[in-house]
């Protein structure tokens, strides 16, 4: 994203979670929030808005990103999603469900030496595409996979 964000990430890396609290006392709270947990990106209501909040650059589709998810998810509350990419210098991987009220489900910041591979489980409101956004060399790349959801997983 921007330089201050990277710097702060390194600072938190150095001291672990404890440093986050310490940093919050020293720095402007707004910048800490923006640097730690990207609230605007998580609250954005559409895929385009999330992409804008994530970095703004126009993402390009990539054949080198593999999004593994079930074709049909019986339970939208537990959809297993695996993102794997052979792109070099991956900085972060984000997972979105297009038709969720807030599409961005999770963002993963990778250290150098960490494989560009993430597997986890997300909730999906209804049938839609799962979109992976990979940030590599400062650029955004995307890939998607359609998942049919028979029982939505966000409401009650």
């Amino acid at each position: 994203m921007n330089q201050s964000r990277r710097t702060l990430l390194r600072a938190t890396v150095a001291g672990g979670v404890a440093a986050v609290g310490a940093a919050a006392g020293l720095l402007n709270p707004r910048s800490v929030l923006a640097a730690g947990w990207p609230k605007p990106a998580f609250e954005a209501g559409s895929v385009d808005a999330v992409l804008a909040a994530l970095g703004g650059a126009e993402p390009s589709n990539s054949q080198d990103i593999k999004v593994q998810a079930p074709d049909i998810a019986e339970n939208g509350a537990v959809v297993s999603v695996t993102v794997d990419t052979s792109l070099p210098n991956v900085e972060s991987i984000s997972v979105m469900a297009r038709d969720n009220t807030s599409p961005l489900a999770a963002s993963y910041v990778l250290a150098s030496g960490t494989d560009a591979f993430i597997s986890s489980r997300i909730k999906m409101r209804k049938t839609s595409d799962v979109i992976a956004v990979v940030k590599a060399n400062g650029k955004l790349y995307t890939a998607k996979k359609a998942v049919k959801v028979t029982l939505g997983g966000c409401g009650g």
Partner: protein
Amino acid sequence: MAIKPMKIRAWVDGDKTHVKAIIFHPMETGQRKSKQTGKLIPAHFIKEVHCEHNGRDVLTCLWSTAVSKNPFLSFRFKGAKAGDKLKISWVDNKGQRDTGETTIGS
């Protein structure tokens, strides 16, 4: 609220270390209604997870309410050997936090 300790498995395969973890957390979305009272259950979810190998951050997860209940996480990284420590710590939107540690196996 007592926190059930997370489960972490980590093992070395070639030059890579595989990690699988389950964190026990309700991950409430804030959109669900309680069946007894009909009121919305407030959101309660993990915001950040830090995974460290010997004190070096290897992965930072930023999560929203759309991550499933009792989140499962799997990732791989380079540079560890059997016997090293892997630490995972999380903090949620209510400020609760927990840390789990395991020794990397072979």
